[in-house]
């Protein structure tokens, strides 16, 4: 029956081509929207996800990674001394302004980390070393910032909040959701760079559970012990940050709405084509029924048409999506094309096309035998 479905589709080439275009358009849009959305979600928690450690201590009611408030630094010692904590590190994340070479300023996000441990610092370097920010006014800029900050080279100087910093390294892959360039400095420098943080405050404490201790247990202990702050597992804080950007800003809703619209547009296109084809072949299907074919055998032809449309449309869309990843990257956007995303979109495509076929199934079920006897 698959072969019959294929022959029916190939017979009417123009209609099949238009349907295929419709499916490619709908599925391509789903791929792009889902990929970009997931890319944005990944970038929103990129520092959390790449920082070693299992536990994050944040100021009370912090909504996400990017807008956390400072809290007293002494709490860091409480964390370190807690039973079940292997190590702890302080981390500063704050906003600042960088002066452009040609004048003007750009907003940046500063990440101050301990250069000796590297916790919270860049995880991949294009040039320089993460320890280079130690003992001085040094900074590492991510290569994704070049578009906004110009072609920065190692060794050159830039003014951040009226302090001249030397660029000692270029990192790779540290791109923020807010699109503000990420600039890494030593913890000490970051603490002093932004006046409102204060010399005795930190923004985060990142800790690692000792071997033999469950992360959840250590988190519970820290929650009981520490007042005025929140304690999360790494995964929970990452998810909280992602959900903030996805839900509270409405970004997720707008992406999902486009995905839903694409899904229904695709369903309408495929549904209409298969329905028209079914109506055109109603006498032939009726004849098969008259000759003893069960409804199920005819349904197989209808569903095969839907499956062929789905698979062909999906494959073309996947190829186009893979080819367009580089185009997205060149515009500083991240599009996630992963195995599970591809499977999810395949599932959506199949659902879209198979659901579309149900209208035709109703038609087959209710074939009026009288039509067979009309010349």
């Amino acid at each position, binding site marked *: 029956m698959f072969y*019959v479905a294929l*022959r*029916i589709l*190939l*017979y*009417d080439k123009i209609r099949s081509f238009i349907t295929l275009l419709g499916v490619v358009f709908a599925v391509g849009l789903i791929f792009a929207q889902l990929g970009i959305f997931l890319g944005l979600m990944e970038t929103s928690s990129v520092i959390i996800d790449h920082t070693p450690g299992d536990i994050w201590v944040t100021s009370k009611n912090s909504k996400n990674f990017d807008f956390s408030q400072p809290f007293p630094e002494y709490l860091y010692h409480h964390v370190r001394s807690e039973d079940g904590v292997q190590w702890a590190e302080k981390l500063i994340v704050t906003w600042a302004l960088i002066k452009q070479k040609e004048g003007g300023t750009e907003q940046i996000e500063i990440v101050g980390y301990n250069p000796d441990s590297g916790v919270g610092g860049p995880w991949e370097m294009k040039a320089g070393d993460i320890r280079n920010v130690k003992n001085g006014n040094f900074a590492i800029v991510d290569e994704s910032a070049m578009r906004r900050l110009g072609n920065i080279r190692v060794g050159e100087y830039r003014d951040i909040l009226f302090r001249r910093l030397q660029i000692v390294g270029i990192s790779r892959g540290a791109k923020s959701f807010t699109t503000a360039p990420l600039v890494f400095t030593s913890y000490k420098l970051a603490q002093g760079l932004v006046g409102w943080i204060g010399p005795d405050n930190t923004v985060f404490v990142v800790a690692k559970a000792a071997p033999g201790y469950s992360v959840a247990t250590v988190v519970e202990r820290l929650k009981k012990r520490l007042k005025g702050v929140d304690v999360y597992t790494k995964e929970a804080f990452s998810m909280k940050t992602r959900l903030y950007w996805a839900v509270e800003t409405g970004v997720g809703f707008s992406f999902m709405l486009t995905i839903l619209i694409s899904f229904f547009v695709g369903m309408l296109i495929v549904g209409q084509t298969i329905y028209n084809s079914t109506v055109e*072949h109603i*006498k*032939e299907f*009726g*004849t*098969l*029924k*008259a*000759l*003893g*074919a*069960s*409804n199920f*055998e005819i349904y197989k032809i209808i569903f095969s048409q839907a499956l062929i449309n789905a698979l062909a449309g999906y494959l073309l869309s996947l190829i186009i999506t893979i080819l367009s990843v580089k185009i997205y990257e060149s515009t500083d956007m991240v599009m996630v094309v992963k195995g599970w995303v591809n499977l999810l979109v395949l599932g959506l495509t199949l659902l879209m096309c198979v659901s579309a076929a149900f209208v035709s199934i109703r038609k087959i079920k209710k074939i009026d*035998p*009288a039509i*067979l*006897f*009309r*010349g």
Partner: protein
Amino acid sequence: MDKPIVTRNLCKIYQEGRVEVTAVSSADLTLGEGEVVGLFGPSGSGKTTLLSILGCILRPTSGSLMLYGKEVSDMSEADLPFIRKKYISFIFQGFNLFPALTVHENVMLVLKLKGVKGEVAERRATELLTEVGLEERIDFLPRDLSGGQKQRVAVARALAADAPVILADEPTGNLDFSNGRKVMELLKNLAAERKRCVVVATHDNRIEDIFDRILFMEDGKIVREKRRSP
């Protein structure tokens, strides 16, 4: 031995709004193997309805329909495809061939529905098409055939169903006299050679001589029967 078709007091009444329309009334028939029977009558006389009931496409309102001794009039909708698959084959005025499939594939499709697979199905389809004189046209699409050739494909497809009863509705309706006659002669020969029971609904008087028996219908009733003199 049980006859292919036996009906007793077969009736079909349609409800059109508040009005009941009797399409077939008290039809008593006994049709044998190898017999070619013509159902004649004006439009609306009930011959197509009777054919639909005999083919288990329509269910009678009352009465009995037995195919090879098996009562089928009270069977459920779900069972009827199996009955049709086993006993009935159809030929329609409009041919109803899949335009996207070649002549060979159209016949193959029915063979596959019957469970005949692979090379056996291919060989059988070729044999059937050769039997109806279309061995040169097996790879043609229906659009490339004349009306007569299309109807011969429909005959081959009906034979592929390998059913003992062949029901044909106006099989010559879209054909000129010469092609119509060829198709009817083909059906008659097949009925004789393969012991098929062929019932043809038609109002084409020019092919009357083909039939072993002619049943004349008027207002849903079989009003007259004419047998061919031996």
